């Protein structure tokens, strides 16, 4: 039952990701790959789409994965799944947020969660980098391919521009233009 699977999977994503945005990436990567809904390349491509369209990453990817695997109703189930935990939890917390905010257990849990998210994103980044730089797996022969150096060049330029606070959409556009130029030139 694809609809129930989409709903439950994205409920889990909505319930266990703290921090929003890229903090959701490790969990989403885990789930979409375990279900065979997307491969790593498709996931990276969709991050670019999500950065270039309005709305939160979590909602965008839920809608996309849901629609692709189960049509519009699938999209609805996945989106409902990712939104529902936030909605319910905020409604509960909103009534007592002063207490919630200064609760020792909540603060303690956050002290564990924030660095965990950093480690989790680093692991997801490592895995996604392998797909981009070493598409055929780790091997020395990669260093003889043009694609490797092209990706490395674009990546380095994009890192510099990202830290210079260039808007993400411009970075994606620029990477796309470079990709097209190099694609026809090589």
């Amino acid at each position: 039952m694809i609809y129930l699977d989409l709903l439950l999977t994205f409920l889990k994503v909505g319930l266990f990701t703290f921090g929003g945005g890229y903090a959701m990436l490790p969990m989403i990567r885990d789930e979409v790959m375990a279900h065979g809904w997307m491969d790593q390349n498709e996931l990276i491509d969709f991050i670019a789409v999500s950065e270039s369209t309005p709305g939160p990453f979590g909602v965008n990817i839920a809608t996309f994965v849901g629609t692709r695997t189960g049509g519009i109703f699938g999209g609805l189930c996945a989106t409902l799944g990712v939104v529902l935990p936030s909605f319910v939890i905020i409604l509960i917390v909103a009534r007592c947020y002063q207490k919630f905010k200064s609760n020792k257990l909540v603060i303690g849990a956050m002290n564990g969660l924030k660095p965990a998210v950093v480690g989790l994103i680093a692991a997801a980044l490592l895995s996604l980098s392998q797909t981009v730089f070493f598409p055929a797996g780790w091997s020395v022969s990669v260093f003889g391919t043009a694609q490797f150096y092209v990706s490395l060049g674009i990546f380095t330029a994009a890192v510099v521009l990202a830290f210079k606070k260039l808007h993400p959409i411009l970075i994606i556009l620029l990477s796309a233009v470079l990709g097209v130029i190099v694609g026809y030139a090589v």
Partner: protein
Amino acid sequence: MKQIQKTLSLLLTFMKIGLFTFGGGYAMIPLIQRETVENKKWISDEDILEIVAIAESTPGPIAINAATFIGWRVAGFGGALAATVGVVLPSFAIITAISFVLSAFQDILWIRYAFNGIRAGVLALIVKALWSMYKQSQKGIFAYLIMFGAFAVTAFLPVNVVFVILFCAAAGIVQALVVGRRNKR
């Protein structure tokens, strides 16, 4: 009557916020501030800081957390529902449309080349996000242990991310209790 007006206004305002913020998450906070504090005067600047703090320590997308919270404050359960539906609706409509055409584009040669470039660019965006989250995170031995442990376990072992998250939250609670007890003595 006033309640219905407020609810409708929440729906439209959050649709606008959902439609005009690219990238999601923290990128939405300035627009939420402008619309709900400056334009509608539903909440105060202090409330915005409050909302960010709460959104950070509750699960799920920050935009959803903020929409639900503000909606509830302004018009109760109906308001929360209206604001949340509003902020989701533009994404949902746009991505649904895109998902039907994206696969058709992917066979065109120059678009394939474009995505070859884009993939490297996206990695850079993740590096940037990783760096900002590292800066926001606590420093110190405990935090570094958690960071490295979470990284090593998920990168090199077939462990479900949920378990890592639950374990790290539990470790944080234990650490807080131990430090709290030590300080009492």
